[in-house]
């Protein structure tokens, strides 16, 4: 299973943190520190895999954002890259040419999309269209006038 997914900028600012196992705040902060340090230190054309304790770390940079997955040792690293790519595609479809600012200002949406794609450290849905449709339908349910008028609900 996947243990965590982190999104952070090139300055090491955290944009999203998804944890698939229970950990103390201290442990989480340590992992975030370690991951940002390790990933940001990598040479530009290195391979996308690293070993960290008993986990495999798979990371990929998209524009100004690093996507970092911590997976258990029996996971397929090459497929993990595909998982990251699929998530980026989902974000892109939803936001239309997604950029880091979209994820900053609509982080809750990024989480909602992730929660339709992955769950409990495993892939939940392999069809892009179904994930997108579920998100759109959920958005429709947010029954406030503001939401209807495409203004933020909160």
């Amino acid at each position, binding site marked *: 299973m996947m243990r965590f997914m982190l999104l952070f900028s090139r300055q090491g600012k955290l944009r999203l*943190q998804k944890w698939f196992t229970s*950990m103390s705040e201290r442990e989480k902060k340590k992992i975030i520190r370690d991951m940002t340090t390790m990933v940001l230190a990598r040479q530009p054309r290195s391979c996308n895999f690293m070993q960290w304790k008993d986990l495999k770390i798979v990371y990929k940079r998209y524009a100004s954002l690093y996507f970092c997955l911590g997976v258990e040792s029996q996971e397929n690293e090459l497929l993990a890259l595909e998982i990251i790519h699929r998530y980026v595609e989902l974000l892109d479809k939803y936001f239309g040419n997604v950029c880091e600012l979209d994820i900053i200002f609509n982080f809750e949406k990024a989480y909602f999309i992730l929660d339709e794609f992955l769950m*409990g450290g495993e892939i939940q849905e392999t069809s892009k269209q*179904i994930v997108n449709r579920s998100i759109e339908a959920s958005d429709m349910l947010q029954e406030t006038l503001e939401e209807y008028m495409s203004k933020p609900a*909160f």
Partner: protein
Amino acid sequence: MALPRMPAPIRLRELIRTIRTARTQAEEREMIQKECAAIRSSFREEDNTYRCRNVAKLLYMHMLGYPAHFGQLECLKLIASQKFTDKRIGYLGAMLLLDERQDVHLLMTNCIKNDLNHSTQYVQGLALCTLGCMGSSEMCRDLAGEVEKLLKTSNSYLRKKAALCAVHVIRKVPELMEMFLPATKNLLSEKNHGVLHTSVVLLTEMCERSPDMLAHFRKNEKLVPQLVRILKNLIMSGYSPEHDVSGISDPFLQVRILRLLRILGKGDDDSSEAMNDILAQVATNTETSKNVGNAILYETVLTIMDIKSESGLRVLAINILGRFLLNNDKNIRYVALTSLLKTVQTDHNAVQRHRSTIVDCLKDLDVSIKRRAMELSFALVNGNNIRGMMKELLYFLDSCDPEFKADCASGVFLAAEKYAPSKRWHIDTIMRVLTTAGSYVRDDSVPNLIQLITNSVEMHAYTVQRLYKALLDDISQQPLVQVASWCIGEYGDLLVSGQCEEEEPIQVTEDEVLDVLEGLLVSNLSTPVTRGYALTAIMKLSTRFTSVNRIKKVVSIYGSSIDVELQQRAVEYNALFKKYDHMRPALLERMPIMEKTASNGPTEIVQTNGEAEPSVVEAKHPPPVTQPTNQANDLLDLLGGNDVVPVIQTTVPTKPASAGGELLDLLGDLSLSGGPAPAPATSVPSSQPAFLLDGLTSPPLFNDIAAAGIPPMTAYNKNGLKIDFTFERANPNPNIAVITIHASNSTEADMTDFVFQAAVPKTFQLQLLSPSSNVVPTLNQGTVTQVIRVLNPQKQQLRMRIKLTYTHKGSAVQDLAEVNNFPPQSWQ
């Protein structure tokens, strides 16, 4: 008159915008604090309208690293709300703030239960997601029934979520696995890929956890044919826009099926046979131009290697990996090396065929790849390829990054030991490593190498000559210098006699050799350990060289060295020259062949002519035999007093008989005049077997006193160093008190070279076992422990004098203290 209402809390995006304008960390913190205060007031007002907004803002601030625990209960309220917007944010907040470590986690259970039965599937989805991501064991137990129900629904949106939720439940509460079994019956007949995928995950989890389940799915459910059918459809079916990734249909599902097949086929002939064809098909037909195809191939290879596949298929798999090694894509190369590492044990010959490609990967620029290539290269070394492989690996050692050097050096030593084609080659290889990566060699290599050299009798002259020449070039690499010093001490006679057969013997005089060794003693580059080696080597040469006077001079100079180790040795060696000259040749004669036991050097080396030197060297790995009793004499020198008896250290009871008697005298005479000769260490085993053998057979007792009921005490507390004593009674001898000292350091710098010594009145006997370490870490980050055993047959009041020495912030510190506050239970 109505009270003025608070202004509406600012919107989330507004807050984000504002916070992003902060130019410093302090400015940001100020904004956050202000907003948190506003949010707190708003929470206190129990405002339903804006709760959602406030929690969302709180989650944003939480992501920036600020505490958000005061929002936990608000999340619960949001979850309980009827509005979908509230629930969405509430569940998100719960997943971020309310994990199972929080007290209020369980309060979610009822809400989740209700939402699992909600009329809107998206609400049910939220509940399933939250439960499946972070539900505690208790929550899982409570709600497993609901999950099981949803696993049987025809709504594929819910079914797939229920399947993963079930996976989580099983992970948290494995005993509940059975209850999900009936629902799995027709999971795989679904058309929906989401359900198929999550079902495969669920089946995988069950098979991995329970051999019974595994057997059940193999035999009764005929899982393998079903999976094979699904996989076949995926490969053969035409383009499906919904699941296509670069021309491959649902690679995620394919990989997951391959993984389940791996588990089903492992160790089972029938299952393996049933999947042979489809594996061959996938292996040969998958498009390899993109990463996604290679991901599937990779999984296929792993499956083939793990099950009982026919040999043709295995060769196919290894060849795929071989092709991966030549791929331009670094990731593919890395993955290939990792897989080959896994299979090198079982399919050694097949992997050997790719040896040259693997060795080429040592030159790869990528650090991850280099590491894997190095590990794999070592795994491939055997008797046939040792010469060629070692050439490549030594070249790699020369040029690789420092982070690899230690591991590579160790690997080279191990491989050389196993497969050396000749002793000369072996020595040469060791020399090469010591001279090129000498400072990265691990500490325990030094005694191992010394033992190796000792046992290569015919190579002694060659070895000492080469090591001597290496020393002339460079004295900065400590392991090299230590091994070289030791050899020169042992075989210096061969060096000056020019007896080398293997290569042109060099002409070197005794004085030149002594110059080099003395040079080591004075050089700033030499560590204290190295200096110890050098001094002992010089001493040994006194029986091999003729220029004894020079050696005597050197030894006496170091009798007043500041370094306590060196001083002690010099004093002992001086004594050897003076009173015990008749024993000197025997003590310093050539080391016999040592038997290698396990892989630990120091303890074994000690069991020879009674020369304690190598054991004293390893300050970091104290063997059961520790410092000679002479250390206690330093204590006496400073304490004076007739009523204290030096610490009796444990010594190896087996000493050669000839030296035994005289050694006793040696130790006896070295005690301070005025003090009675202490009971000699070596006679203790026979007169008081229970005492000494207890120390050797039973491990030190580091248990706390609660068991024994004797309260602990603080023996010393000064300048940031605190030493506590904890007590225990030793079985079977009730006259023995076992005291464990715990030294801790509250200052900001480590205390290194920490040595604890103790002396007790005459009527007691003391035994000090090895300390856990000689560094007391700063700021109470750890303690050094050491066990003292006190024999008190007369049940007198226990008193102790302790001496502490350590290095702190660069300067040596020494202190003495009396310990008188022993609790009565420790000696009564």
